[in-house]
């Protein structure tokens, strides 16, 4: 009984919490953007407008579920599901509290990277299946941007992995008991943060869906709940990247007084707020600037950071580097 029920319960709790908070995040983002733009934002539906997401959800669910006649129907329907599925799957390895994760994988970091790479398919397939020029351009941009940025996204994490000596996210959090990794890995944090922005194609890196040049980019032809899936997927992606930053750099659930999960939620919320602040503050770069920035600035920086971390670690520790990984043992 206990063997089966507990993981299922964990999954149910995490799934519900994620979907509910991604809906709440839409409201929170609009309120925060309004705060930084001297407006109020949605404040009519329910107290402080918190039921706005519910109203939006009712609206989007009752909309006509339309597929354009020129679209490749099967792929068109599949594409929005992919982004939600991959992002939700990636959440499986996030440790929200000690022992409270769907899967305590030894390769959690790599699993996260793999899943965030798979979510590119959603953008590319949506752009392709829509069979329209703006959607295709958006899909192409999405593919180029996410492929370029994910390279140094992976590299920027490797410094943390070196310090922790493990790919297991729970172990990485535990390794931050003495010092959160954003102190020794500040460049890694910044690089990972920017890569995360690009991965979730959030402003200022939202070129795949740049409104003023590509209508809505890869989801131009989408309507109703299929569009809603992209929307939810994007917000889930923000939370995923924020949770990863919390786990890898900000000490995960570690913190005094408050319960572990509260610390995790607090830190993740803070990172999400920074995401939203950047959206409020920064304009979008040109696409060639985005690419040049990724390949010419971020990638070398990530490599230098990785090399420096390795060198310092070699110099400081007497024991061979690999001990940490072997000590973790089979799980």
């Amino acid at each position, binding site marked *: 009984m206990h063997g089966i029920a507990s993981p299922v319960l964990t999954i149910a709790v995490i799934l519900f919490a994620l979907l509910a908070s991604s809906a709440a995040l839409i409201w929170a983002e609009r309120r925060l953007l*309004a705060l*930084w733009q*001297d407006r109020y934002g949605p404040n009519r539906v329910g107290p402080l407008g918190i039921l706005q997401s519910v109203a939006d959800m009712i609206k989007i669910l009752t909309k006509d579920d339309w597929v354009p006649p020129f679209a490749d129907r099967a792929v068109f329907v599949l594409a929005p599901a992919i982004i939600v599925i991959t992002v939700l799957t990636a959440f499986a390895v996030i440790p929200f509290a000690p022992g409270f994760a769907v899967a305590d994988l030894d390769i959690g970091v790599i699993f996260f990277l793999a899943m965030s790479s798979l979510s590119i398919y959603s953008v590319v397939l949506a752009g392709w299946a829509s069979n329209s020029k703006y959607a295709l351009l958006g899909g192409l941009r999405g593919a180029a941007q996410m492929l370029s940025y994910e390279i140094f996204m992976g590299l920027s994490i490797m410094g943390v992995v070196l310090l922790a000596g493990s790919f297991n996210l729970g172990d990485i959090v535990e390794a931050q008991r003495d010092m959160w990794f954003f102190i020794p890995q500040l460049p890694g944090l910044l690089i990972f943060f920017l890569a995360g922005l690009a991965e979730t194609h959030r402003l200022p890196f939202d070129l795949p869906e740049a409104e003023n040049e590509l209508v809505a980019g890869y989801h131009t032809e989408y309507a109703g709940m299929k569009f809603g899936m992209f929307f939810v997927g994007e917000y889930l992606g923000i939370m995923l990247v924020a949770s990863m930053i919390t786990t890898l750099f900000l000490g995960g659930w570690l913190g005094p007084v408050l319960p572990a999960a509260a610390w995790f939620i607090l830190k993740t919320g803070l990172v999400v707020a920074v995401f939203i602040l950047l959206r*409020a503050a*920064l304009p979008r770069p040109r696409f060639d600037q985005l690419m040049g920035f990724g390949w010419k600035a971020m990638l070398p920086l990530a490599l230098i950071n990785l090399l420096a971390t390795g060198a310092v670690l070699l110099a400081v520790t007497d024991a061979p580097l690999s001990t940490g990984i072997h000590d973790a043992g089979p799980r």
Partner: protein
Amino acid sequence: MPALASILRTTWAVFLRAFEKRVTVRYPEEKPYLAPRFRGRIILSRDPDGEERCVACYLCAAACPVDCIALDAAEMEGGRRYPSFFRINFSRCIFCGYCEEACPTYAIQLTPDFEMSEYARQSLVYEKEDLLISGTGKYPDYNFYRAAGLAIKGKDKGEAEGEAPPVDVRGLLP
């Protein structure tokens, strides 16, 4: 590097906006200030004696650039003119105030009120009883018939305010 500094400065400046006052006026709860001469809902006023000021001269209807005013003149037995009906179609009205400028008797006036939304377009057609108010509007003391030289019942020529008795042009006396 200067670009990075600029980005950080921008972000910080935007963050500081969180502590500024919000400019939104939350309308139904907070009413905006409307100047006394705000050009809103049109009314027909009465003179200090409580009679209709409108003399049905059609000048407002002629001045109206969108032809939203319709009326028809009638005359009381005493010689006072009044509109037998007076209709303003507010779905056409552009609140330009030309009718008020054209009005020789201060009868038609625009008021600081804009809350006249309706669900049915037909409800935006206001009849005379919808337009007439019981007061004098912006000009509390003005009474056209007392100031004008026109002879009506109870006031003959030369009896208006500030008016000299009529000159008998056929008389010989200077």
